[in-house]
């Protein structure tokens, strides 16, 4: 996960001078008496906190403080206009009996269950093809990444809305094959699938990560497997997958977290309603509606906390099970 210095140009001339001066100084300093240690340490600590101060203000004022306040709000009824009223666990209890809440959980889970494996399979397959030693690799890599770059934008969501409407491009394509189309985005049966397709379309980032990983797999492993008589399928399952498992872990974690937080496409495609017939009512969209359309801040805060806890549990489970299926190079 570390970033390397990308340019290998020599350090600035001025910096080089500093190095020279430093070497002479170190030589000189070895004879000099040591400075007072405490004061230097204190000064460094003060400098540290000075440098950190914007971040600290942000952490306390915009992250931790608000989260604690939101936990409090989740036990209240609050509409921004009159002060919060303590309601205990009412909001949490209401969730269990709120059909739209339960429905939004279902929609979001179905979405994630299709989208996460979909993105992983497509991105890994393309990364493997691109890793065959193909010419113009930078071109292909960049071009396949393009949808990732714009996929979450309002522009593409609007485009999707047109493409899968009754007079859209998708139906025109089906007509070429003589298939009768339908209003994909206006039909509760199919609307969610169009959003899943939109998400899988943005496979570029995981693909680039896999591609970088595939290039790190030592060639000897494949050669050894070949000598041992392993076919292409066997090599994939016994060499490629285990060697990529840290990246698979990483991509599963990221795509799942992203899928559970999806908002813009559903909002734009359904014009903020989550329709048709609540078929695209993502968790976050419902949270938005409760909090900012109906000004039910307490309920929205409770929903946010449920999401935080669920994501925390999911992340913890992922890390806890990692040692059973994630292989790091030095184990072998």
């Amino acid at each position, binding site marked *: *996960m*570390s*970033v390397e*210095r*990308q340019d290998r140009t020599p350090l600035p001339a*001025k*910096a080089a001078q*500093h190095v020279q001066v*430093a*070497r002479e100084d170190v030589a000189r300093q070895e004879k000099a008496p040591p400075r007072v240690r405490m004061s230097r340490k204190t000064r*460094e*600590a*003060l*400098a540290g906190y000075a*440098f950190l101060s*914007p*971040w600290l203000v942000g952490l306390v004022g*915009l*992250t931790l403080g608000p989260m604690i306040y939101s936990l409090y*709000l989740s036990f209240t009824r609050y509409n921004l206009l009159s002060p919060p009223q303590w309601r205990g666990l009412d909001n949490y209890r209401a969730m269990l009996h709120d059909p739209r809440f339960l429905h939004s959980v279902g929609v979001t889970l179905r979405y994630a269950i299709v989208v996460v494996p979909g993105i992983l399979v497509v991105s890994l397959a393309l990364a493997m093809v*691109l890793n065959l030693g193909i010419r*113009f690799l930078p071109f*292909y890599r*960049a*071009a396949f*990444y393009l*949808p990732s*770059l*714009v996929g979450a934008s*309002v522009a*593409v969501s*609007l485009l999707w809305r*047109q*493409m899968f409407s009754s*007079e859209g*491009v998708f139906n025109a*394509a089906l007509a*070429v094959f003589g298939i009768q189309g339908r209003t994909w985005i206006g039909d509760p049966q199919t609307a969610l699938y169009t959003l899943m397709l939109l998400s899988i*379309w943005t496979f*570029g*980032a995981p693909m*680039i990560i896999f*591609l*970088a990983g595939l290039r790190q797999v030592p060639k000897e492993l494949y050669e050894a497997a070949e000598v041992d008589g392993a*076919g292409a399928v066997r090599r994939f399952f016994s060499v490629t997958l285990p060697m990529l498992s840290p990246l698979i872990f*990483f*991509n599963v974690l990221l795509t799942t977290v992203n899928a*559970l937080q999806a*908002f813009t496409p559903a*909002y734009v495609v359904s014009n903020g309603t989550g329709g048709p017939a609540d078929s695209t009512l993502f968790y976050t969209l419902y*949270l*938005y509606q409760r*909090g*900012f359309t109906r000004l039910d*801040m307490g309920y929205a805060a409770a929903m*946010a*906390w449920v*999401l*935080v806890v669920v*994501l925390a549990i999911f992340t913890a489970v992922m890390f806890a099970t990692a040692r059973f299926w994630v292989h790091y190079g030095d184990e072998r």
Partner: protein
Amino acid sequence: MSTSAPPARTPARALSPIFPKRPSRSRLVRGVARHILLILVLFLVLYPLLWMLSASFRPANQTFGTLGLWPSGFTLDNYRVGWNYGTLQFSKYFLNSLVISVLCILGNILSCSLAAYAFARLEFPFKRVLFAFVLGTLLLPYQATLVPQYVLFNHLAWINTILPLVVPKYLATDAFFVFLMVQFIRTLPRELEDAAKLDGCGHLGIFARIVVPLTIPAIGTTALFTFIRTWDDFLGPLLYLNDPNKWTVTVGLNGFLDTTGVSAFGPLFAMATLSIAPIVGFFLVAQRMLIEGVATTGIK
């Protein structure tokens, strides 16, 4: 291809895994076939974007339910009409988006690099605990602070200003970029800083004159991804900017849905194309940096 391969004489099990050396001609054929296949897949993947580009130049009298990419007429009318469509004024929206993006980029670079320098190079009490918070907030969903931050900004009377979108960036709330820069600064050689220290340079001097210039690659990655995220952001402006004069491009685009029906596809796609043009443009210019950023950090 299999017919051209000579029949194996030796026990098949032993030798078959090792690919026989193919003649270079079949190799060439295979290479070309691969490229044709890849280009087909690529065309399919990029088709929606190409279609949108073509639709933005299509004359108003043509239907938009066609597959073809080559318009039978070519017009810039959609751009002219879309730029001021009904009550929508895209000159304002682009300016607003630009101002917010530039302010956010500056904020993120400034605050994240300051914090990163402290974590990477300075010793102070509770450093480990505080750094754990950086890691802990990396995966924190934005929904966690959505409601209480709104309440806070409402209390400060910041609704309908750009402050809720910009000020958090000056307080390094994007933990990801702090983390990115910490990792980067840790890889820099310490000798330069030690030398500067002995020359009597303070921490601020070391930071500004030595660390920042050497951290340019990570700063560039931060700037680029901050730009993409801010420019694309929809929920933030939707929540905080209610006055149409303060809308950003994303909210303005969504406004097409509120004001009109199906008839305005031409101007809509013209503005949609314009709205992603800066992102695609930056991508083409800084492509290598962006791809390496993704490959090494997994940012999206």
